């Protein structure tokens, strides 16, 4: 049963999975509560264009994905705030635009190789040794900022006007948060894949929300669900020889469905 740990790529995949498993709910809980889930999906597609640039130019695809995702996240925020176009249409522009760019870049290079399928659906084989270093660094930054400022983020997500009146610099926090989301999404791509990232960020959180507990407990439950699904998914995908992203998300989905059916909503909530 332990022979899989003899393979360095499996160990690398598991380490990467653990890192992502910890930071995804930290970012995901605020994405869900601020109704930003669709931004996650959009930034994942932008990251694919970033990956394509990386594969085409020979740069590390994780870094090019990070760059593309971070720049786009700020551009999306700006476009949404400009009020010249509707908020969702800003997302559609970036989602389809970056997918178009990715397809054209792939076409130009006469269709890379198997790599692309791995980036779409996730594979532990996609994690390169230097990626682990980038992931650990970013995870540390995200984790530290979260520990320092999670109370401010909760306040901003719950009641932005009152948070502003209490002196919290909302625009700096909002930009920083969207930037960290972009970073989380970009580093999750190798394991989860572009098309499944929003599930990674959203599913553990909405499952945890079904328990109707405090913020602290909701986050704890989301972390447990996230980490255990990723571990089960990666080990399972190794034995079944299937894309890790798909298996991870199916495990998360199963946990969500069971929780949703067991936890009946309180009648008061239904009357709202």
């Amino acid at each position: 049963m332990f022979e899989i740990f003899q393979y360095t790529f499996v160990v690398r995949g598991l380490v990467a999975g653990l890192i992502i498993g910890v930071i995804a709910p930290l970012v995901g809980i605020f994405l869900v509560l601020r109704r930003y889930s669709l931004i996650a999906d959009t930034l994942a597609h932008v990251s694919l264009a970033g990956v394509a640039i990386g594969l085409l130019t020979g740069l590390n695809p994780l870094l090019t994905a990070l760059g593309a995702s971070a720049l786009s996240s700020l551009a999306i925020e700006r476009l949404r705030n400009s009020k010249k176009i509707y908020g969702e249409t800003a997302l559609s522009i970036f989602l389809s635009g970056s997918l178009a760019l990715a397809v054209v870049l792939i076409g130009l290079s006469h269709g890379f190789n198997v790599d692309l399928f791995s980036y779409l659906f996730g594979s532990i084989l996609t994690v390169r040794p230097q990626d682990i270093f980038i992931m650990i660094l970013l995870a540390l930054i995200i984790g530290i900022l979260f520990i320092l400022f999670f109370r401010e983020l909760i306040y901003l997500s719950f009641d932005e006007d009152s948070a502003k009146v209490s002196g919290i610099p909302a625009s700096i926090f909002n930009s920083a948060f969207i930037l960290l989301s972009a970073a989380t999404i970009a580093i999750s791509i190798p394991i989860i894949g572009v098309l499944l990232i929003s599930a990674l960020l959203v599913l553990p959180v909405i499952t945890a929300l079904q328990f109707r507990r405090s913020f602290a407990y909701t986050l704890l439950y989301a972390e447990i669900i996230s980490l255990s699904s990723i571990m089960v998914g990666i080990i399972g995908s190794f034995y079944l020889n299937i894309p890790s992203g798909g298996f991870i998300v199916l495990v998360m989905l199963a946990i969500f469905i069971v929780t949703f059916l067991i936890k009946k909503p309180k009648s008061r909530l239904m009357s709202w």
Partner: protein
Amino acid sequence: MPVNHHKNIIEIKNLSFAYSGELVLKNISLNIHEGDYLGIIGPNGSGKSTLLKLMLGLLKPSAGEVNLFGKPVSEFKDWYKLGYVSQKAVNFDPLFPVTVWEVVAMGRLGRRGLGKNLSDVDDKAIDKALVEVGMTEFRDRLIGDLSGGQQQRVFIARALAAEPAVIFLDEPTTGIDVETQEQFYSLLTKLNRERDLTLVLISHDIDVIAHEATELACINQTLVYHGEPKEFVKADYLEMLYGKNIRQILHGH
């Protein structure tokens, strides 16, 4: 420190605000003194919520200025002195996973400084605020599971936890039954009289303002009246200014 009822804590000078080219507020001058309980009334769309947001620095004036505790809003730093209970506080996401205690703890953020942990002093202030509004036994309940009146008390507790000098309330009783409203207003009156807390309350309910507030401002793009509530009612300013249907205008929102 004894309250000085002549000391201006908020000064509004020749304030105007336009939104997409349309004038919402025109040339408003108004002072709020320490210990005042100012009720702001006005018809729908009269700009009263806008005026509140200008006082709080959430909007920038097109002309004129607002001074908070002697400083222009743009230079004001002591935000913990202001508590705010917004209209939105009643319309929050009922599924949001925060307990009563976690909501009240938000009130300490401005006083504690960004990125710092809550200390024993903060914990005590949170507990005290919960006692003050009578919500201690609900501290571990989710805010979304409470009734509208209880939620409103929690939002007052959040404002109180910052130990502010003044609390701004924007139509805090929307959607709350009459009996609970009365309890809520007597809590406000108690805070004003016993704690000398300055209150700025926007309300549709002119009867409540006439009975409870110490000052009344009537806004309809301009400042129509500012003075004692009793004078306002006695002089029938309402009918003079708006015609005979004013009570319906104010109530029928």
